[in-house]
């Protein structure tokens, strides 16, 4: 491989490399490690949501159902049985995929804004079930006694994940894997069809695609990764908070997505970082910092719909353009 080709490959993947680099040192530059894990897990959930909103154009409010259900499934498995960690994660993903299939099917029966409201109703339903079924979920008190499992492949090795740093890198492994997978999907023909549906669903149908099937697939894929994020979160907190399935969590992910930049995959990561860090730091100074977040959000809707990532890309182009002229 020549230097030229390597250089091109680097430039194409520059963002990815930089992102990985930042994440590798994040726990050491933020005020405390748990904050880095929080950013990481919500970044994963928002990137998954980006596949649905940013790439397929599906607006929904049941993100919390997927995220929270992933957390509950893993939490319950550990609480009762303490099986292998990969089994816990795998089952959560499978369970949430099934849920996403059901919600996706019903949500995509018709075109239009009714998916937004239907998913809102579904989310309320999941919250209600979690709240009422106290013997299973602990209700509003949440699910406790979830000791963190060890990273273990039976017969090969067993590593404790009790330290915050270790768990962070464990979660980072899944994040990078998921991110690259999702990016591959968006760059594939399947991904292009999703974007076509976002642009004009009727036209995509006219061409001959069964758009409903594609949208359901988007639901399942996006939902599964949100479930993965939730699964990691339950092990991170050793606790499942009922608010994880509440509407507020869905809203939080929507804000991260918009502030970060829809349809860019990197944007949501920035959005998750911005919202999480801002809330953590601002909270110590002013309880009503949420007001500022709301104002920022509205400002972005008005003037910066490409999100923070969009601003960065504009800056990058602005810096690049003079050089192009010389070539």
């Amino acid at each position, binding site marked *: 491989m020549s230097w030229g080709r390597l250089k091109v490959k680097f430039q194409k993947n520059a963002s990815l490399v930089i992102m990985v680099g930042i994440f590798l040192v994040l726990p050491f530059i933020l*005020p405390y490690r748990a904050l880095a894990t929080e950013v990481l897990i919500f970044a994963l959930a928002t990137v998954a949501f980006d596949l649905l909103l940013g790439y397929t154009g599906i607006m929904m409010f049941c993100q919390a159902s997927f995220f929270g259900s992933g957390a509950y499934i893993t939490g319950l498995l550990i609480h009762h049985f303490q099986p292998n960690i990969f089994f816990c994660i795998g089952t959560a993903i499978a369970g949430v995929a099934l849920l996403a299939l059901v919600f996706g099917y019903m949500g995509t029966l018709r075109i239009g804004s009714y998916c937004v409201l239907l998913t809102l109703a579904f989310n309320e339903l999941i919250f209600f079930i979690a709240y009422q079924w106290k013997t299973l979920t602990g209700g509003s*008190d949440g699910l406790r006694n979830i000791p963190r499992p060890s990273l273990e492949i039976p017969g090969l090795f067993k590593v404790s994940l009790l330290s915050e740093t270790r768990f962070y890198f464990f979660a*980072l*492994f899944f994040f*990078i894997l998921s991110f690259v997978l999702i990016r591959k999907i968006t760059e594939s023909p399947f991904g292009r069809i999703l974007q076509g549906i976002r642009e004009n669903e009727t036209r995509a149908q006219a061409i001959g695609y069964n758009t409903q099937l594609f949208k359901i697939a988007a639901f399942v894929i996006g939902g599964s990764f949100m479930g993965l994020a939730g699964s990691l979160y339950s092990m991170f907190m050793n*606790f499942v908070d009922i608010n*994880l399935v509440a509407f507020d969590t869905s809203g939080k992910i929507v804000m991260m997505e918009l502030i970060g930049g829809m349809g860019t995959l990197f944007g949501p990561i920035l959005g998750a970082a911005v919202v999480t860090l801002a809330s953590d730091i601002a909270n110590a100074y002013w*309880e009503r910092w949420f007001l500022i977040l709301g104002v920022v959000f509205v400002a972005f809707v008005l003037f910066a719909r490409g999100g923070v990532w969009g601003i960065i890309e504009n800056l990058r182009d602005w810096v690049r353009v003079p050089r192009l002229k010389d070539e």
Partner: protein
Amino acid sequence: MKKTLYSRRDFIKTTAIGGLGLAAGLGAVPKVARGAEKGPIAFLNLQPFSGAYADTGLDVSRGVRLAIEEFGGKVLGREIKLVERDATNPSDSLRRAKEAVEKEGCKFIQVGTSSAVALAVSEYGSKNDVIVGCHAGADSITGTACNKFTFRWAVPTYGAIREVVPRLIKELKVNTFYTITPEYVFGEDLLRNTKEVLKEQGKELVGNSYHALGEAEYSAIITKAMGAKADCVLFLNFGGDTVNSVKQAVNFGLKKISKLCIAWSGGQTEFIAMGTKILEDLWVGIQYHHAIDTPMNKRVVGDYYKKYGVMMPYVAASGYQQMMVMLNAIKRAGSTDLKKVIAAWEDYEYEALTGKEVYRKCDHQCIKPYYTCRGKTEAEKKAPDDFVGIIGYSKNFLACDKTGCTM
């Protein structure tokens, strides 16, 4: 040409990056700031500073600060560093606890009035060597979910009901009860205890109405309660729900049919929200009242009034008292070694706002009285915030072997 979605090369690449990162991280030695034996001692105060219970959080904080001030701002010759963080939901609270432990080497936490938050942080404390002082009322905190690191000042639902209900029966000669219960673990605890006490006393529960937590509309329940025509209607809810339900009940005219009683009152915040007219002749069960007749209480209430211009509310007293006990336990232990502090804290009787108190060893529950009060008429009030007067009090706690606590 068949292009696979994810080629083998890509997979190897990704796993390599991820694996490298994982190995780097697993090998990394976590740099945790350990509280040096000389520097300040950090105390984390996790209270709701935003959301519906923000006033509660502020009051607890005031109580805690007053205790620190009285203690002299130092313990064991080291400065007391108070870190206060907003704790409206368990996830954020846990993260804040992790932050305090990592950044400040914090080993002492006071956690607020939400049962979910208290239970979550209490468990965290037991797994991560942090002493947690709880201000919530759920029975399980010193019951089935108890642990060596958690202490709790407030009287749980068992003791609250066993003071209030027999008191009502004795003073008002009531025989039939109707209960209004929030559909919530805590509400269920209050109801269960009520049923037990009524059975013991040979009185009748003629009916119960559940309502959703945060309910704003009580007309159905009130109508049912009026139809039941019980001697006494017992409100087993708290906070905003109590304010709403009691106000609507009085507007419907329920006071003219039954005696009204709030079993678990949040104190001043609720009284101010309800107002004198509603509170008149209403019976209220409460953890603490500023008119408690002990020398220490008189002094502290006076100090609080000088500093903040209001009578000390129950949650502030809770913050003050438990912080005082925590600081004194550290002082008596002579070190911040948690085993020693716990040993010094347990089974030590001390002079408190309510008289003599002790945190018993078997479940780390504070043995203190619960109070029944009656709402004063406008004429009876001695000051604008003097809403209720104490009628009686008693200490009621489950025997150690009956709490379900195993430590």
